[in-house]
């Protein structure tokens, strides 16, 4: 009697799991209850334990690979048992419904149905192991053989006769083979596609619609001649972890396609103001604006926080090793965001000059497409309008934008005494699919350190 090891629902919301590490090799002797592998769920890394004993005959899922709940991932059997039928049927079997509680899961057990004596025997064995969780006991051969007429299988119902899609359709999306292939080829997560075929089946036209939507959502990426086409080494593409996927999916449901949250901080700008004054005293050619200093600080802070210098690409996150800073510029009838490429490697004077030029060309409508595409992070400043505090909207596929308010003299307590200080409020809009609260906060912490101690910029 072989035991099928399936991807178990190790958390209540788990729909698929990533096999992190096998702890047993093929050929290892396995006792019931032993840990077979580590599986990353949408919440944590959990242990997948054996529900039967024998030899780990076959591992069907590679380390790092992902399987939906219910998929066959290994087979435990006697050393000489023929398990071809089990392996051949991998993936096609019914999944235990995802919300079924493992402890109450009915043991899926079928006996060879030929022979009249099998009925009472199967019942007895099923009772004996009724507490065992969902790994399915099946006869070593002739899987899915229906009971001959007049020999209806005894309760409990063999799991192999459950509907193939997991019963309630909650588990795995029904998908036509073609749609499955197209999704794979286009790097599309089927979980994000809505099926319009019978019973919600995902079919070719659904994939095409999803691809079209994806393209529409990223017009810049599609139409950009790309001044500096990203080269290898400019970025790291990181596949989504289970937790990242869950965060992305659930928060998008809650807040729209880009689940945004906002972090506001109040910076002390006295030293920045001092610095500006000192520079101006050296002569007009050394004059820089607050915005130039903020841009330089943001660019420098981003080099320390690549986790917020990123693009959301649907199935992965692209973390950039270069900083291309978008700068929102108001023009007569709208807004455009020219880019200061490699801003982190530019001196403040260069940033200042480039920002001025770009803003002027933006207002003259003389920007070339490659000058306003390719930003990895953006800044929007309404301080010159006296706006104290505002929130900016993320420009996808970027994952954050920083809204800069006006620098104003305000009463604050410094070392327990009320004092008048130059203050500036910034608000960072963050795409929660990529950036978590603490991640954004750490970036702002660094930015604060740089603006409150501008010497950090040359540190």
């Amino acid at each position, binding site marked *: 009697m072989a035991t099928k090891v399936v991807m178990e629902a190790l958390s209540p919301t788990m729909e698929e799991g990533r096999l992190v590490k096998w702890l047993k090799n093929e050929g290892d002797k396995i006792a019931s209850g032993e840990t077979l592998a580590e599986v990353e769920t949408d919440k944590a890394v959990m242990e997948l334990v054996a529900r039967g004993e024998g030899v780990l005959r076959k591992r069907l899922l590679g380390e790092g690979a992902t399987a939906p709940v219910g998929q066959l991932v290994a087979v435990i059997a006697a050393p000489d048992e023929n398990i071809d039928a089990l392996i051949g049927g991998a993936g096609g079997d019914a999944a235990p419904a995802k919300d079924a509680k493992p402890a109450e899961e009915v043991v899926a057990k079928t006996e060879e149905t030929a022979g009249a004596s099998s009925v009472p025997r199967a019942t007895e064995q099923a009772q004996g192991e009724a507490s065992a969780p969902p790994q399915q006991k099946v006869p070593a051969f002739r899987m899915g053989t229906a009971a001959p007429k007049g020999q209806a299988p005894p309760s409990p119902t063999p799991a192999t006769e459950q509907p193939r899609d997991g019963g309630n359709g909650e588990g795995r999306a029904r998908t*036509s*083979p*073609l*749609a*499955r*292939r197209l999704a794979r080829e286009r790097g599309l997560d089927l979980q994000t596609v809505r099926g*319009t*075929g*019978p019973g919600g089946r995902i*079919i*070719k*036209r659904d994939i095409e619609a999803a691809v079209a939507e994806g393209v529409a959502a990223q017009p810049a990426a599609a139409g950009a001649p790309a001044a500096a086409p990203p080269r290898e080494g400019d970025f790291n593409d990181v596949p989504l972890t289970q937790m990242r996927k869950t965060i992305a999916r659930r928060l998008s449901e809650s807040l729209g396609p880009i689940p945004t949250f906002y972090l506001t901080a109040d910076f002390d700008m006295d030293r920045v103001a001092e610095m500006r004054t000192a520079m101006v005293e050296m002569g007009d050619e050394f004059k820089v604006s607050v915005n130039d200093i903020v841009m330089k600080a943001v660019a420098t802070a981003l080099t320390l926080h690549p986790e917020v210098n990123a693009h959301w690409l649907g199935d992965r996150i692209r973390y950039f090793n270069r900083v291309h800073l978008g700068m929102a510029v108001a023009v007569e009838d709208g807004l455009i965001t020219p880019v200061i490429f490699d801003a982190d490697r530019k001196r403040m004077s260069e940033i200042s000059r480039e920002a001025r030029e770009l803003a002027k060309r933006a207002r003259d409508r003389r920007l070339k497409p490659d000058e306003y595409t390719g930003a990895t992070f953006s800044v929007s400043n309404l301080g010159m309008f006296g706006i104290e505090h505002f929130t900016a909207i993320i420009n996808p596929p970027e994952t954050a934008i920083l809204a800069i308010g006006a620098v104003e003299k305000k009463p604050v307590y410094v070392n327990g005494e009320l004092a008048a200080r130059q203050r500036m409020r910034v608000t960072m809009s963050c795409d929660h699919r990529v950036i978590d609260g603490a991640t954004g906060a750490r970036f702002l912490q660094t930015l604060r350190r740089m603006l409150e101690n501008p010497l950090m910029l040359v540190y």
Partner: protein
Amino acid sequence: MPIITYRDALNQALREEMQRDDRVFLMGEEVGVYQGAYKVSKGMLQEFGEMRVVDTPITELGFAGVGVGAAMVGLRPIIEFMTWNFALLALDQVVNSAAKMLSMSGGQYPMAMVFRGPNGAALQLSAQHSQAWESWLAHIPGLKVVAPGTPYDAKGLLKSAIRDDNPVIVLEGEMLYNTKGEVPENEEVVVPLGQAEVKREGADVSFITWGKMVLVAQQAAEQLAKENIAAEIIDLRTLNPMDADAIASSVSKTNRAVVLEEGWSVAGFGAHVADFVQRECFDDLDAPVLRVHQEDVPMPYAKNLERAAKPDAKKAVAAAKKVLYLEN
């Protein structure tokens, strides 16, 4: 190019091959004096004489067996069955003798012969005379099976069948004999066995069919075209050996297949096609393979019931729309 009937196309094929090779002869009920029950052998007794156009008694097993014996000594007989319904009596000779001879004698006995006749339903001939037998015949290793749907293919496939060194089954159709089509006059028409033909090109859905159902597929495709649906028609022409490449290349283009056949659904030849498609074209399929076939009942005599039982263009259109997810 002359437009001739399916009947005349067969007649041309028989006469040309008998002129070409004097080992070829025709034998069956009413083929001589009566000029053929369906006049396929019209004028042949006069042209070739009694030795080569042989009238037989109503003894299907007998004259099929005489044909097998003649083939064993090197002649190339063409056995005409008045219909394949009557050929059931002769199946022992067809299946146990003709189909096995080359294999069981290790090739020592030749078996170049043709069994031909109309297959499937005509009109109101009732249950015993309205049956399509391709699933039975294509099932047998050692037999080749062709089912031409047009006059051109009828001529070309019959000529190839006569020239082939294996026993070949030719499935004609009473309802096809009067259909007309272009067949060139001054060139030799030979259609190789085992080659399907794209009878109509389309990108949306593949009709895979053969024989009489090619006409049904064409009607269905016309109707679908009015709704801007482009159906492709793959006419298998030969069922065994089946042209797998033609099926695969069409399905990989359209991503959906509907198999049309005259016979019943259970273990029908269409099931064999569907089996091939699901296995070899799995990743190209956007919908399950559907089959259009005769209802699983003995063919009713009553006209309205017969019509309801037969596969037709309406059923084919419905199936096409279903695999296109336009109807449920």
